């Protein structure tokens, strides 16, 4: 597996683990022999001195073995946990470098499980392999050797018992494994019925369908129970069968032992030792067969991790670093774009437009006309398929990504806040910003008015993703965050939709007053939000269909007039 290289920094621990394991196992293996000696020579022979002597030696050995055991646990912990940490860190680093099309593809839930469950799974496997695989193999092989060295005739028992046990385990695992995955499916079914009923409780109640839903649930529930019972029925055969094999071996050993003692080849204590060994050997087989399951699980997890770890980010940073000069020009030249992995019509078709530094520019259009896609190309969230996107005359693909994104302040459609205080969240824009800077940014963003009303003010903690705030409040906080960043280009991606017109116009004049020189690109659905902009671009089906001021567009553009009329006369897009 490709992941083995992550063990390299911990090679010493990786090596010490099996070594100390060998120590522990050897002691374990010698234990029955010493016991046999105590019984045969000490107790039977009536040699008290030998009992005490061997007893003390045995204790010392066992203490040594115990130390080895603790040692191997510690070494393996250091190796496997270190391995997991490095792997986790690298994988997360990779995730943070992914492009959006890639994170979209993986989905959040899957990335989280890969970084936690899957890595834990692999870590446990490493620990397991370093210790248990070594231990069980040695116990297994050692047990066989020790047993045969007691008496070669015991080999007969092994030859009979081992294959039988192996075949039994194999058959049962093979039979049970597919049913386990069916159990999982049935469980999902039960879950989805519950989920639908919890989420859709209003509809179920409104249509008075509780009875029907209960029947639906019962069906899934009984189905689950029956499948569960089916698999458990198979698995409950396993234990008794293994017991029979093991116990028959015990009887065979006593019998063979009897013959050998009669023939003077063996002593009673050695039979006892042999009984312990056969136990060890047969348990070893069971453990090793379980290991196969664990290997296949870890393998699946490893594969899922590698999928993330070895993916190349689609968008690579360029090297151009611009100077300190204030810029802010954005131009699109014959740009076409289509979301990766989608077929059919491109979202943006051969679009050309120049936005001047310091301009107040608006983009208007129906849902799906390509507004958001267009501005996503500026900070290189996605790359254009054809044509060029230029910022201050330089193709965005040539920019160093950090440098490019530093120029751009982006207020997203969906305001994303993070757990932390209001201060923390605004300070995302500039972590060195002083409190006064932060408060000033909040004032410009019209956020100060509600933040100062919060009980803890700017130190108020924002619970997960700002659930306690209204949509408009969240938008204002993310606007403050962008303002604090002091960008050259400030982009509003439909991010004033939850503000009422009064607040929006106050925001606009505060922006005009405080951030005169920067370029503002505003995407909106409401005509009222954009009509005062320097220029308005109207998009339709991914193409630029009109460009000009509000007055010009009213005269020249039919589409713009339609939108205007729909909002004014019929209220098509308007919210009350």
């Amino acid at each position, binding site marked *: 597996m490709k992941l083995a290289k992550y063990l390299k920094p911990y090679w010493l621990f990786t090596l010490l683990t099996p070594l100390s394991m060998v120590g522990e196992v050897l002691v374990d293996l010698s234990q029955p022999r010493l016991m046999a000696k*105590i019984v045969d020579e000490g107790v039977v022979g009536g040699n008290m001195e030998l009992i005490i002597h061997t007893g003390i030696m045995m204790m010392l050995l066992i203490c040594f073995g115990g130390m080895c055991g603790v040692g191997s646990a510690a070494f393996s912990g250091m190796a496997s946990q270190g391995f997991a940490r490095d792997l986790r860190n690298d994988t997360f680093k990779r995730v943070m470098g992914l492009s959006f099309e890639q994170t979209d593809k993986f989905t959040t839930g899957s990335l989280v499980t890969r970084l936690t469950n899957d890595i834990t799974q692999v870590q*446990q496997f490493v620990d397991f392999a370093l210790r248990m695989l070594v231990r069980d193999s040695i116990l297994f092989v050692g047990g066989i050797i020790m047993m045969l060295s007691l008496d070669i005739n015991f080999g007969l028992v092994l030859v009979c018992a081992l294959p039988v046990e192996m075949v039994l385990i194999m058959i049962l695992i093979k039979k049970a494994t597919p049913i386990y995955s069916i159990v999982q499916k049935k469980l999902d079914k039960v879950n989805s019925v519950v989920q639908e009923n919890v989420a859709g409780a209003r509809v179920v*109640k409104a249509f008075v369908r509780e009875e029907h839903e209960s029947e639906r649930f019962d069906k899934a529930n009984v189905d689950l*129970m029956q499948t569960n019972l089916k698999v458990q029925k198979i698995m409950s055969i396993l234990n008794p069968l*293994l017991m029979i094999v093991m116990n028959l071996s015990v009887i065979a050993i006593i019998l063979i032992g009897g013959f050998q003692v009669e023939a003077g080849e063996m002593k009673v204590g050695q039979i006892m030792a042999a009984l312990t060994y056969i136990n060890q050997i047969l348990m070893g087989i069971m453990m090793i067969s379980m290991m196969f399951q664990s290997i296949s699980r870890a393998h699946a997890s490893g594969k899922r991790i590698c999928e993330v770890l070895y993916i190349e980010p689609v968008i690579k940073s360029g090297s151009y670093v611009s100077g300190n000069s204030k810029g802010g020009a954005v131009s699109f030249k014959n740009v076409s774009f289509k979301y990766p992995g989608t077929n059919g019509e491109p979202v943006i078709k051969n679009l050309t437009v120049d936005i001047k530094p310091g301009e107040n520019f608006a983009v208007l259009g129906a849902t799906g006309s390509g507004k958001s896609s267009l501005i996503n190309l500026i900070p290189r969230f996605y790359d254009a398929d054809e044509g060029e996107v230029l910022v201050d005359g330089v193709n965005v693909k040539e920019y160093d990504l950090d440098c490019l994104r530093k120029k751009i302040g982006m207020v997203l459609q969906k305001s*994303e806040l993070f757990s932390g205080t209001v201060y923390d969240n605004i300070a995302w824009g500039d972590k060195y910003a002083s409190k006064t800077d932060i408060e000033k940014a909040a004032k410009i963003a019209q956020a100060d008015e509600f933040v100062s009303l919060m009980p803890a003010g700017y130190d108020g903690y924002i619970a997960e993703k700002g659930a306690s705030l209204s949509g408009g409040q969240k938008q204002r906080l993310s606007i403050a965050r962008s303002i604090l960043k002091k960008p050259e280009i400030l982009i509003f991606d439909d991010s004033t939709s939850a503000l009422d017109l009064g607040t929006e116009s106050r925001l606009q004049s505060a922006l005009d007053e405080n951030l005169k020189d920067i370029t503002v690109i505003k995407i909106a659905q409401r005509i009222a939000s954009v009509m005062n902009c320097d220029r308005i671009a109207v998009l339709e089906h991914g193409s630029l269909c009109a460009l000009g001021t509000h007055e010009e567009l009213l005269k020249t553009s039919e589409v713009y007039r339609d939108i205007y009329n729909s909002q004014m006369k019929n209220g098509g897009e*308007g919210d009350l």
Partner: protein
Amino acid sequence: MAEQQKRPTPPVNNSPRPLGKGPRGPVLVHEKPKDVLGTLKRILSYMGKNRYIFFILLAVMLAITILNLIAPSLQQKAIDTIGLTSGVDYKNLVKYLIILGGVYILTSLITYFQGWFSAKLSQTTVKIMRTDLFRKIVTLPIRYIDTHNHGDLMSRMTNDVENISNCISQSIGSLFSGVLTIIGSLIIMLYYSPVLTLISISTIILTVLFTSIMTKFMRKYFTRQQILLGKLDGHIEEMVVGYKTVVSYSKEKDAIDEFNKMSDSLRKTGVKAQICGGSMGPLMNIVSNIGFVLIAGFGGYFALKGFITIGTIQAFILYSKQFSRPINEIANQYAQIQTAVAGGERIFTVMDEISEKDDKENNCDFIPDEVSGNISFKNINFSYVPDKPVLKGFNIEIKSGQKIAIVGATGSGKTTVVNLLTRFYDIDSGEIEIDGINIKDISKDKLRETIGIVLQDTVLFSDTIRANIAYAKPQAKLSEIESAAKTANADRFINRLPDGYDTVLSESGSNLSQGQRQLLAIARAVLADPKILILDEATSSVDTRTEMHIQSAMVALMKNRTSLIIAHRLSTIIDADKIIVINDGRVVEQGNHEELLEKKGCYYNLYQNQFAGIAT
């Protein structure tokens, strides 16, 4: 904990599915239940519903325990026949071995039954629990559903029930046979030699002490590990969900640094947890071997003196092993039982919630099909949270067949009106009447059969399209379903689907677009043919073209019935017979569009605020 399993002990373990789980999965994280006894009693009473299986299981376990105690003494007797100074006594050896074989086979057979019965017991028990829990969930008031985390509710149905199932199938068995084994071994050991028994008890006490100390440490670290893992989880989720923002602010490096910090503390705790877990086995081994040496030493001494035979020492060693193993097992099960009880407690809390009920014997005169649809809200006061009234002295009068639009800012109480009319929530004071009958006097089922609702978030079920449309009227004919779909403008896209009306929707209908889902919900309402129709922002997240389609469907739908529209789009409001403007829990204005604009009041302001400046 698997550390013990690999010790060379006979595989008498009660787990019915030993291969289903990772051999090293630390399942030690547990919650502490509050009322252990009460909860246990209730879980037991659920098991009691399968009384026969339960008692058979106990009998079977008793048998296994006895057989397990007999086996070593037979083994010892067989070996004794070999160890005789007069040579091997074959006759007796064979005799003992045959008996031993019989006992072993019997044990295996009974073990099989034990596995099977405990699976059956646990599965049927949790099945009944699940059924009860679901019945409860369906009848829970909306207030409960609205105020509780759905994921949490789901996890009670799955994780908590699963914990109980594991506990029944594994813990109860080992607990029972463990206790029996300890008592049995103790008696037999005492019978063989009281002095040696004393010695081995002293090592047992040592074992118990050790186990309890070690598990305490382990629990501490494993819990901490779980907490750290949860935090890490949260961090990843936040960063990935907000990835666009992270990238826009070039915060990747900070996110990585933070992650690495968490990752490293997880590693440190992980190492400690693992050392604790891994040391358990070797240390226990040392303790149990001290016991062995002591027994061998003293035993040898006694044998020398002629107090006991060699076979007795052998048997004693075996028994003392039998004795210490269940103690380990019980210690292991303790955590699992605690988890199960905590889970049971969480399940029972839901079951103890008060269901939606009708307050009294209900007026039987109310027949949903004959309702004409006059609705009046009289002086309603209502609050979701005490002291925060949502509706205050709220009054509306709606006449049969009218089309009413309710308008107001977010949080003004629009949706509350719907919640009250359907009795999802009950009013604090005042009266709501349909055709002059107080809705409190109507059974909830009949009331809701009168009312059809189409919600903003369309609820669809993972079933066929046909079944989804026919949700309110399962006995509907295909022709009725199709004509409802036509009315709702949905038949066009349905016919384009590969399986038409038999297309199975994936979970919550995610294989349809938002607009298509909304059309299905409207078709459902058409088929239900309710006397009163409520549209709660039913077309909010649909683009303009689809909206046109829905619009005509809506007009068809609202014909001949009383309709209440929680308005979003101006176009729907403008046609309404009456627009009701709500502000701060009160009706502030009512009338049609023109009247309200003329009034230059609240409605006018809302309207102007939306389009302010355009005129100038």
